[in-house]
């Protein structure tokens, strides 16, 4: 998998938008960091390296990683979707309402996914057809969808979903402690990675993320592509909503509040440029795992949640600052050499 993340060349003067200087490196860095952290934690944190804990950890990551998949593609094209968590909430609420109404889950799930498609399409329409900035649009739908969730389910919490489903949601493969859901998730990860890194579609995503005009002049239908990305993001978020509801066995309007920031944190930590056009999926998955592992490990050693937040923040910042600084140092050296 080759990723277009040519580190910005020496001269910031090279006539190109400032964003190029900001392009983050692909996942390799963060992945190594993750591996290092896991090793260290395994030896230094009691109870971290156990199958049960691995299970707990993965269960916490599943929804974040799941939604991060399509959202990464969206960010690569230079757009963003802040409404994902609200979509989770609305899907959960609708799922609960339909269950009260007496539908079987076999019927509810497809309906909820369709709902997700519609919600995504609304974002996509406003962004691609009306040409509104996605950041603004999805701040709007973030409020709108969460609001609708309360309209649908109000203050109720629907809880009596069939044991079979809810236990499956948290079941693990044999005695490995690895949650069963990780399997379908992995499949989706691979599919998404291939699409992004090894198909014509993926190429066009990077192209439009860097220069929408140039992409259009190359015969890429930017609007349509982005529209579809938003739709897919909606569907996957709805899927996340379904899983969230089953995993906690409780359908509520306020499910997953604030999750959007965690997903985006994972994506940015994974080295995807918020301005689009660069970054890879490997890094994003690593980013999600790293965030979760760090929290998990620190919780195990009873670090208070305030500190956890600080750590999360610092982690995020260092993840973007470090490569910049090293790149700059390299440049300095490069410049010295011919001079001396």
């Amino acid at each position, binding site marked *: 998998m080759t990723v277009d993340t040519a580190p910005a060349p020496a001269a910031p*003067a090279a006539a190109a938008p400032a964003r190029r200087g900001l392009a983050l490196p692909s996942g390799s860095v963060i992945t190594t960091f993750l591996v290092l952290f896991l090793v260290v934690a395994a030896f230094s944190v009691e109870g971290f390296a156990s199958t049960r804990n691995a299970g707990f950890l993965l269960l916490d990551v599943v929804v974040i990683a799941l939604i991060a998949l399509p959202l990464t593609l969206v960010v690569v094209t230079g757009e963003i979707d802040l409404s994902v968590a609200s979509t989770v909430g609305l899907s959960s609420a609708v799922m609960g309402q339909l269950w009260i109404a007496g539908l079987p889950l076999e019927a509810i799930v497809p309906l909820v996914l369709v709902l997700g498609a519609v919600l995504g399409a609304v974002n996509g329409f406003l962004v691609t057809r009306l040409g509104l900035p996605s950041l603004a649009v999805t701040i709007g739908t973030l409020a709108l969808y969460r609001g609708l969730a309360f309209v649908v389910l109000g203050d109720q919490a629907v809880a009596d979903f069939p044991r079979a489903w809810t236990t499956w949601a948290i079941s693990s493969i044999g005695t490995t402690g690895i949650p069963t859901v990780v399997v379908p998730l992995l499949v989706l990860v691979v599919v998404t990675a291939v699409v992004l890194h090894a198909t014509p579609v993926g190429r066009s995503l990077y192209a439009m993320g860097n220069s929408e005009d140039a992409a259009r002049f190359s015969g890429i239908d930017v609007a349509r592509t982005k529209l579809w990305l938003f739709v897919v993001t909606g569907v996957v978020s709805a899927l996340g909503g379904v899983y969230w509801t089953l995993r906690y066995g409780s359908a509520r309007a306020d499910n997953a509040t604030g999750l959007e920031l965690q997903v985006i944190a994972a994506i*940015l930590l994974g080295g995807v440029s918020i301005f689009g056009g660069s970054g890879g999926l490997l890094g994003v998955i690593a980013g999600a795992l790293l965030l979760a592992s760090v929290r998990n490990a620190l919780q195990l050693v009873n670090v208070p949640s305030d500190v956890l937040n600080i750590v999360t923040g610092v982690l995020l910042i260092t993840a*973007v600052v470090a490569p910049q600084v090293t790149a700059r140092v390299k440049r300095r050296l490069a410049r010295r050499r011919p001079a001396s």
Partner: protein
Amino acid sequence: MSAPLTKPAPLPEELAAPERSGRRGAALVQRLVLARELGILAALVLLVVVTVIANPRFLSGQNVRDLLLSAAILTVLAAGQTMVIITRNVDLSVGSVLGLSAYASGTLMVVAPGTPVVVVVLAGMAVGAVCGLLNGAIVAVAGVPSLVVTLGTLYAFRGLDSLWASSSDRLQINAADLPSGFKSLGGARLLGVPVLFLVAVVVVVLVGYHLRTFRSGRELYGIGSAPEAARLSGIPVGKRVLTAFVVNGALAGLAGVLYAARFQTLDTTAGTGQELFVVAAAVVGGVAIFGGSGSVYGAALGALLLTTIGTALPQLGLDPFWRDAAVGALILGAIALDRALQLRLAARLRGRNARR
């Protein structure tokens, strides 16, 4: 050191340009700027009218005062945020900064009850400025996307805040702990207008005037409009961006003090989630999220609109569950309106070009 040149030789006749005045263009741009803010103003008036029809008491003195009070804080935040957004950056940490400075100024007043209000205000702003300095330094010096940095500091500052609160014995600072002099500020009025709101107005006017009439202000627009061009034309990009963040931080700090004065109960959740509303206010107010255009007056109107929505909806007797939905819908409506106006301008420009 450059030697001024003597007046250049006049051009040959046939090369002299045809006379042409830009009045039409000036008027057009003027109209656009107006139109943008007018659009929001219209939305605002409409909302108020509808609410008043539904509930005449909406315009009662008490209620209007409450509304302006609530608007004050968001407005101050929006003013600062506008400066940052114009430079093609964003500061998501303002909510946390507000919380931090509110708690800081609160603590100051508890440990040193005698402190004059002015000092408290300055202290709060100082705390904010430091936070802004941190954000700005990372963004400008390390040259990393502000959205990532400030998302990080959003977590970090909030963490600091609650860490501070939990490690001190003061989880919550209550009205009883605050000096009455400061508390009176919350309700204080000048000619019937809440003082806090006047503070916000002053802030907006100052920022707006600076952005419009000083070189440094215009350079902020330049940076946001084309960072590379800004560098090539010798604008001190790093310095300007840094300043924008510091000012924004200081204003968030001020907002924190206003918050303390208004709510007089300070816990570690103060200002949580404000960032999205602030950005929304700016965007609704016609500030281009990708920098380079928009005015602080628009942003202020945006803030006023959002607050009015917040207070009007319950008084329209709207089921509380419908509240957030309505807010979202209105945000979308506002930016769509703004977009429509922009498109009209673009169309005119094209027409004008071809007509040359």
